[in-house]
């Protein structure tokens, strides 16, 4: 880890998580190059465990975005993504997942778990804008990811809206290739939740009605019961 995060204005504080020293260095150098005009401050760790430890510290509260590799030993980037989103469900830290594998299932898995974007390695200069698009350091109303925060609570079955909302312009191109897989997998996941939600709602309503009925019966002396029988 590389020291305290400075609270500079307009500087995006990125927590970079990658077990490969080569990849860590490439991303660090990429984000600190002239073309990025000093707009990133990168803290690099080599494991998801260290990332979680860091986010628990005071300095970790100041992180604007997490950029994580998918394939890591012990705790994967996918598990880290879920853990980070669970840290602060009301205002989760944006997470971008990177992977050397361009696998639609993997991409949809991550997006469904709440990742703001998914970038195929190796990272290049053109990918830097996607990082800028997905950060809590950006002023409200100007970020592509506004639509991401709007889509929580649970998205509609028309998950194509959610997915298009998630992606930044350049990210959309990558996502189009996985949209079919995404639609399929996300509708499968959603359809699991909907009957449950419906049952919960019906149960609550039934309990409320029952409570109301019991109240009436105890106060009305059972008249309404006769009405039912008649």
């Amino acid at each position, binding site marked *: 880890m590389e020291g305290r995060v400075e609270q500079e204005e307009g500087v995006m504080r990125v927590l970079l998580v990658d*077990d*490969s*020293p*080569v*990849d860590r*260095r*490439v991303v660090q*150098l*990429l984000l*600190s*190059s*002239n*073309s990025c005009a000093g707009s990133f401050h990168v803290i690099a760790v080599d494991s998801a465990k260290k990332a979680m430890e860091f986010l628990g510290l005071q300095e970790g509260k100041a992180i604007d975005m997490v950029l994580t590799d998918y*394939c890591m*030993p012990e705790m994967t980037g996918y598990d880290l993504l879920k853990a980070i989103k669970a840290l602060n469900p009301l205002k989760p830290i944006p997470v971008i997942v990177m992977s*050397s594998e361009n696998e639609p299932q993997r991409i949809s898995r991550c997006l469904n778990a709440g990742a703001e974007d998914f970038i195929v*390695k*190796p990272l*290049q*200069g053109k990918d830097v804008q996607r990082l800028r698009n997905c950060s809590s350091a950006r002023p409200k109303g100007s970020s592509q990811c506004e639509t991401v925060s709007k889509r929580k609570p649970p998205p509609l079955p028309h998950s194509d809206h959610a997915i298009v909302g998630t992606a930044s312009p350049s990210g959309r191109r990558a996502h189009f290739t996985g949209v079919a897989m995404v639609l399929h997998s996300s509708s499968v996941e959603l359809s699991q939740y909907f009957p449950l939600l419906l049952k919960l709602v019906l149960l609550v309503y039934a309990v409320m009605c029952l409570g109301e009925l019991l109240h009436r019966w105890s106060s009305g002396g059972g008249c309404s019961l006769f009405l039912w029988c008649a």
Partner: protein
Amino acid sequence: MAATPMNQLSALVNNMFATGLLDEQFQQLQMLQDASAPDFVSEVVTLFCDDGERIIGELTKLLEKSSVDFDRVDAFVHQLKGSSASVGAQKVKNTCIQFREFCQQKSRDGCLKTLDSVRTEFYDLRSKFQTLLQLERQIQGFYPK
């Protein structure tokens, strides 16, 4: 054409591209090297060489065992493939892809043969990278930034 360090460097790099040793990712890294990061390429290349050496050592040890843990072998090859891709080391990366297939098939012979290829290609790349960095240092000596 005089064999100045500058000309030698161009010839070397061009040759590495022409023979498929390097791909456009290396060009990306070269483009990122500028006044704010004058040692970008040498840092990344050095890291790659050290990391690659370490991984090849681990792979050799794992494949020497009588009972090979192919999952661990695959994990290391995946690492090497990833760092080769990040640096633009195309030939090494492609051999790693083949290597992973032998891991999936749990073929010890296939893995051993491919490890030999990876080792040869890696050392060839490494020596060319070392020459490249030497020439760069010479050039920087003539034209200090």
